């Protein structure tokens, strides 16, 4: 059986709203318009305007309102049309939500989910293409999830909504329409994926490729190519950026002795850097080659199609880096002056 990510998210929202009357949706165009990307399709009809709340374009305000409602015990699911706009509300996500349980020593918890598409889409230029995984992932008090498949989308979103802490749920617009096989188990309304556990999407023994979100699919395709060249790559889908499943990563690297990280976000202080540090800290003696980072280019996202392609990781990049990690020869590098 197949399901696309959009339907997976939609069904997860639907089930959690039906199971718990404290759960409500708010955001721009989530109601009458059925969602800018149709993730909330049908929910207004089913649950009415009290529980599917269309907001004005005032992110700071409605994120704050969502957090306040969570203080009181409701379970808001706040949609950002894209996470680029979450910057207008980021003070509430960090200072009002993430830090509250700690600074009140548990008096006030904040069961809220912030969700929406994150990172690069296609042709939307620099202000609409940023990946926030590393930023949010650095904040104690937040949980940060990055679904890849439809199973991830369902299981992680349902867990996020049931979780008593603030969760940042980073979707990917380019995955919404992608179909994935889905099990009966994953379709059950009780299906939840535990937070903070990575998933091994493909087992291998020569090199570990760690990725999240759309880059998992690129990594799997790279692994396929590598297998034809006799390299057996293990592909880890992080699922969760925070908590980061350091154990799963280190166990894999201790087996393969080689590590490639893949992410679409900016490189400096990125998820790849953290994974590298974690492996150096915990498994230094197992590493047979330098860790390879594949990241978004260190530039704002350009509009032109050819430049945009250069600005995000391609399958070739992952293949090349994996080969380097395995000390297979690759073509020479290129340095330009900008």
């Amino acid at each position: 059986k197949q399901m696309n990510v959009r339907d997976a998210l939609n069904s997860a929202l639907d089930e959690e709203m039906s199971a718990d009357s404290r759960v409500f949706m708010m955001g721009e165009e989530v109601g009458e318009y059925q969602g800018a990307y149709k993730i909330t399709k049908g929910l207004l009809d089913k649950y009415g305007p009290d529980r599917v709340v269309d907001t004005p374009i005032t992110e700071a305000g409605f994120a704050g309102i969502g957090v306040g409602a969570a203080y009181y015990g409701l379970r808001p699911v706040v949609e950002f049309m894209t996470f680029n706009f979450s910057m207008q509300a980021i003070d509430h996500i960090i200072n009002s939500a993430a830090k509250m349980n700690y600074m009140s020593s548990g008096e006030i918890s904040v069961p809220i989910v912030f969700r929406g598409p994150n990172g690069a889409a296609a042709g939307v230029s620099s202000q609409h293409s940023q990946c926030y995984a590393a930023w949010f992932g650095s904040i104690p008090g937040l949980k940060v999830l990055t679904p890849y498949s439809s199973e991830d989308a369902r299981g992680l979103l349902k867990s996020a909504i049931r979780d008593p802490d603030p969760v940042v749920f980073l979707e990917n617009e380019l995955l919404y329409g992608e179909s994935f096989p889905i099990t009966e188990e994953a379709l059950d309304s009780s299906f939840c994926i535990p937070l903070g556990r990575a998933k091994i999407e493909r087992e291998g023994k020569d090199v570990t490729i760690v990725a999240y979100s759309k880059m998992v699919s690129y990594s799997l395709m790279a692994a396929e190519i590598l297998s034809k060249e006799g390299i057996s790559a293990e592909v880890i889908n992080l699922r969760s950026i925070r908590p980061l499943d350091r154990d799963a990563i280190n166990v894999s690297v201790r087996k393969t002795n080689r590590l490639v990280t893949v992410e679409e976000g900016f490189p400096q202080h990125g998820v790849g850097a953290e994974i590298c540090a974690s492996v150096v800290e915990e498994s230094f003696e197992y590493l047979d080659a330098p860790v390879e980072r594949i990241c978004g280019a260190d530039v704002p996202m350009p509009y032109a199609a050819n430049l945009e392609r250069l600005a995000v990781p391609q399958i070739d990049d992952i293949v090349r880096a994996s080969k380097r990690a395995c000390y297979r020869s690759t073509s020479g590098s290129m340095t330009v002056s900008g």
Partner: protein
Amino acid sequence: TSTALTIETSIPFAGHMIDTPSRSVSTTPSEILTFFRDMATMRRMELAADSLYKAKLIRGFCHLYDGQEAVSVGMEAAITKKDCIITAYRDHCIYLGRGGTMIKAFTELMGRSGGCSKGKGGSMHFYKKDSGFYGGHGIVGAQVPLGCGLAFAQKYNKEDTVTFAMYGDGAANQGQLFEALNMAALWELPAILVCENNHYGMGTAEWRAAKSPAYYKRGDYAPGLKVDGMDALAVKQACMFAKEYALKNGPIILEMDTYRYHGHSMSDPGSTYRTRDEVSGVRQERDPIERIRKLILTHDLATTAELKEVEKGIRKEVDEAIATAKESPMPEPSELFSHVYSKGYGVESFGADRKELKASLL
């Protein structure tokens, strides 16, 4: 002492897009005596915090409320603990007004484990959820959308309760207030925006920060009321009125004309941007405690000596609270890691040296 009394507010309310409530406030002798006791307690607590700060027993930022006490007690007299209050960092007395104890307040201020936030919040972060107090927020303006969110939840749950979201004249210019007010109005949330206009945001006089310092008129579509915030009875009247209004119609703004005697925080002498005369003028003519004292004496509800006795008792209570607070131990080192999450799933957290100190969060 439960005979009803009616007292006239000395200054009329000013209204924006709404008829003002009556200046005749119903009260009782016991209510007025309680006002006196509560305000005097708050005053004394804040002055003691000043000393503790100077003695280095309180650290960091510490914002005192002396001068503004009538806002808290008047508001509390109008509402119940099922209504919610949220405020900024100037929160000690709001916490007290909500039923918090002085002991827990002082203990928190000293960063001890018995504090209302177990020593982890400090001066700016007091909470008391069981009586509807949601803090205690350090970022100017943030508490107003948060407060509208509380009101959203109250309405969502179909409770007949309201939220008072308090903010300063400086905070009044923050864009997020306008965003929140618009949504509160669209959705008819039972939110009362209480602007405590003490006329300065840190060192900036209101007119230097706001083109229109008539804060009660700030929402062009939401009604507002200007209230003598030094008169606990006026505050009570306005809050009763506002609660009733908000439950029926949605948000309303209350501008409380008040004054802070202390500097902005302990690092501000509070004397460079205003004259000593201005401060002493307010103390002499508008002090909220002295006003109530006069009222009590005029109406023969107690004698001067009896009031002195009350104040003496308060001083003792304060001293005892401080002594008790001082006995509270510092938090256990393991508390560094507690409450990062309310459910940690056994994930790891790290100290400064992760190979030396880490924790598994449950």
